[in-house]
């Protein structure tokens, strides 16, 4: 990507609701859209591109563009699970660089806390017939990743617990977070075992809400009053079961991270703040290793002893409390990862967790199931 054509994130807004029983999914999308546009200093009529994923009802953009009454010349609804909004930002940046649009709006919203309509099972999906009869839930799959990581690298439940502890230290300052109580390693280990070896506190919250982001070309970003956050690197990858050569301890982040860092021309050691998708503690640990923040297998040592806590550790992460403590709207944590990274780069995070001189940040998403089929998207942002 030519640096002169790099796109900017000019608007980012997270819905404050965690329980929204009186609002529809589309209303939540609309409130997020309005919030992000207002944040950018733009209006609905400025939008000429729209992106959404499977959390939007109907036929994605077709339904939402009609509902929001947008007039666009570019749209994309690639659904790769919870990391989709990060992919949409990458694709919006490409579309902007290619002259296809100027102002891209990306929304994510849902109300799994108030009422969840499960996506219908499609009997033509080829993997389903082999997995449906097998009794399992999402956490069971991630728990297998955790156990294999423990087996191969000696990772411990205590080390995984530190990830929740760090998130909770940040969440205490977020008035909207679902879990604001600071927890200890012992609290995590003594919480009920959900799927051995993962405890209840190794899991993210379930929340209503959502978020939206506005991406524009440089000329427009420079005309706005907000601090400028430039997208300098983006990588995406998908990993499945490799025809039976399943890899439980490594993710597609190996590829998405390498691409993003190469494009940005920076190293993991340059990153001042990292938003890491945190459906479970193990999701964070594997991503940090694969992104190159430590050697493979050393993630347990990297996250232990408060090293992810802002102001204390070497790698402050998820300073809003993340999915582990703050929100996981629509069961998809992608957009909130971007929004907190933008807050950090603008210097608008809570003062207690704001990283000093936060000039370079990373946001990383893991979509769907780490142990069966997942997507990884890595974005690197620079404050200008």
């Amino acid at each position: 990507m030519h640096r002169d054509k790099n796109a900017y994130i000019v608007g980012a807004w997270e819905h404050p609701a965690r329980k929204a029983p009186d609002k529809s999914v589309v209303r939540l999308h609309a409130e997020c859209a309005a919030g992000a546009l207002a944040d950018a200093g733009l209006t609905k009529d400025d939008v000429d591109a729209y992106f959404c994923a499977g959390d939007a009802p109907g036929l994605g953009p077709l339904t939402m563009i009609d509902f929001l009454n947008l007039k666009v010349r570019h749209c994309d609804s690639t659904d790769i699970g919870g990391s989709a909004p990060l992919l949409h930002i990458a694709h919006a940046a490409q579309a902007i660089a290619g002259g296809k649009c100027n102002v891209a709006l990306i929304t994510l919203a849902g109300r799994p806390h108030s009422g969840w309509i499960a996506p219908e099972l499609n009997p033509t999906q080829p993997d389903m017939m082999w997995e449906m009869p097998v009794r399992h839930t999402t956490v069971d799959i991630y728990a297998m990743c955790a156990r294999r990581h423990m087996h191969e690298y000696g990772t411990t439940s205590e080390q995984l617990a530190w990830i929740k502890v760090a998130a909770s230290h940040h969440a205490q300052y977020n008035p909207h977070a679902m879990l604001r109580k600071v927890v200890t390693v012992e609290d995590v280990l003594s919480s009920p075992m959900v799927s051995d070896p993962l405890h209840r506190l190794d899991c993210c919250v379930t929340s209503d809400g959502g978020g939206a982001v506005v991406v524009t070309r440089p000329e427009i970003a420079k005309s706005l009053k907000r601090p400028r956050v430039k997208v300098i690197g983006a990588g995406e990858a998908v990993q499945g079961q490799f025809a039976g050569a399943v890899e439980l301890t490594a993710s597609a982040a190996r590829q998405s991270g390498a691409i993003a860092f190469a494009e940005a021309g920076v190293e993991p050691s340059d990153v001042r703040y990292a938003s890491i998708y945190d459906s479970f503690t193990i999701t964070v640990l594997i991503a940090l290793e694969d992104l190159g923040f430590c050697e493979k297998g050393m993630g347990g040592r990297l996250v232990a002893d408060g090293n992810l806590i802002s102001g204390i550790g070497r790698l402050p992460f998820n300073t809003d409390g993340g999915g582990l403590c703050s929100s996981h709207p629509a069961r998809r944590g992608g957009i909130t990862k971007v929004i907190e990274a933008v807050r950090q780069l603008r210097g608008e995070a809570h003062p207690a967790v704001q990283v000093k001189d936060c000039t370079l940040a990373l946001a990383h998403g893991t979509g769907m199931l780490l142990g069966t089929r997942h997507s990884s998207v890595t974005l690197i942002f620079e404050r200008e």
Partner: protein
Amino acid sequence: MAGTEFIENSPETKPFWDATAAGLFVLPWCRQCQRTHWYPRGVCPYCLSTALDWRESPGEGEIHSFSVNRMRKEPYVLAYVALSEGPIMLGNVVDGDPATLSIGRKVKVVFKPTSGGPPIPFFAVR
């Protein structure tokens, strides 16, 4: 359940389910690249050949990883099992005390009946 609507929509997998109905566990084998794979899909995921045979397997392997769900009255075990032929297969370990399981434990395919569909393969400790 591996409901009949799934099999109807993936007719290439019917021989697998016919085999389980006869109490046999079979794996797809590619005549072109001489490899087996999981899950069965009617096309070789290594070379895209459709020249596939079904080869009978003893269904033996060892636990690659597992989890024990403790949110239900009766805990259940999800596992990835590395079959002796190579592929790693998702399944439930349905017998024995979950507390005695470990990675590397030897297991074997057993069939459990379903209502309205063919029997499905699970794993039992050997």
